């Protein structure tokens, strides 16, 4: 890999711009798409690789090319700078998520409790509108306080977020569903909320609950039967 290609690839990653690295396997010649104009078959493969987040092999004029997508990281938005969030943040980062914690309560959302991650202190609906969850975003609400969780869930439900999870018992969730129904959300939309949040691994401690949440996020992203989605899924980022 030439220094120029490496620098361009790293610049695209720093700018969170999706690019595909195209490598001719016979001699190692490389370029980036869409930065470099390439023949149609390669461009189509690059586009598909980025869309599906899956590498592709293409033969062009009898020569094999490797098409390697470099999408920006998946995002996880955690609402509630609580104890479970402290455990979930490093786990999600290790799994490759860019994590943002939203909590207007400044006593909770401190850099001491969440070193080195993006903290947002705005009200949760303003924060969620600004963050604009997309099909590569997971949203997890953990405040257990309707004043904070509900506005965040309202925005999440109007987005293509591939995962929405909310902390709270079945009883808490039933009340939440009633409130969000009142706010105009359909039964099918509300079925997108995974609650009680997380895979059922009988988690007890904060790190165990964090593990169950991350496991459910991964199960949903990868289309595992363990993901308990009952409503038609929005376009899930592959």
């Amino acid at each position, binding site marked *: *890999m*030439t*220094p120029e290609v*490496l620098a361009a*690839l*790293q610049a695209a*990653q720093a700018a969170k711009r999706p690019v595909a690295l195209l*490598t001719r*396997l016979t*001699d*190692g010649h490389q370029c980036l798409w869409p930065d470099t104009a390439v023949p149609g078959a390669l461009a189509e493969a690059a586009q598909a690789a980025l869309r599906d987040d*899956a*590498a592709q*092999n293409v033969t062009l004029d009898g020569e094999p090319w*490797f098409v*390697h*997508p*470099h999408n920006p*990281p998946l995002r996880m938005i955690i609402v509630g700078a609580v104890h479970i969030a402290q455990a979930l943040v*490093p786990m999600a*980062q*290790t*799994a*490759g998520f*860019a*994590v*943002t914690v939203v909590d207007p309560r400044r006593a909770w959302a401190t*850099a001491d409790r969440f070193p*080195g*991650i*993006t*903290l*947002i202190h705005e009200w949760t609906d303003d924060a969620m509108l600004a963050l604009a969850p997309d099909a590569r975003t997971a949203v997890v609400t953990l405040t257990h306080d309707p004043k904070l969780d509900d506005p965040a869930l309202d925005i999440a439900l109007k987005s293509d977020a591939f995962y929405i999870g909310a902390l709270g018992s079945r009883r808490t969730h039933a009340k939440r569903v009633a409130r969000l129904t009142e706010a105009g959300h359909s039964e099918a939309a509300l079925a997108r909320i995974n609650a009680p949040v997380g895979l059922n691994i009988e988690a007890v401690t904060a790190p165990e609950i964090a593990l169950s949440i991350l496991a459910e996020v991964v199960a949903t992203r990868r289309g595992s039967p363990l993901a308990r989605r009952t409503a038609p899924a929005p376009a899930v980022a592959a």
Partner: protein
Amino acid sequence: MSEPVSRTHSHDDDVLATAADWRAAGETVALATVVETWGSSPRPAGSRLAVSASGKLAGSVSGGCIEGAVADAAKETMQTGAPQLLDFGISDERAWEVGLACGGKLKVFVEKLS
């Protein structure tokens, strides 16, 4: 709002960042990338292993069964500058040597960071 900081170098984009850091620090570095898999290969196409001339490793291209052979090829590529396309599989003698216990087949592209 504070800037996010990557705390880990666990996923594949970070392997590239690690390799670039080594290169910037003056090391000779090669990058191995899984380009095609068949059967039960543990790491998907696009998975990367960075190797430095001083013997540092970051990332992976398998569950650990071919890393040694790939690192050997990487050292060769560091010396010659020529990329290599390695083929590991049931029918491959080197794969038998290193023991591809997963029973899968894969191709690994090895290149030097120039």
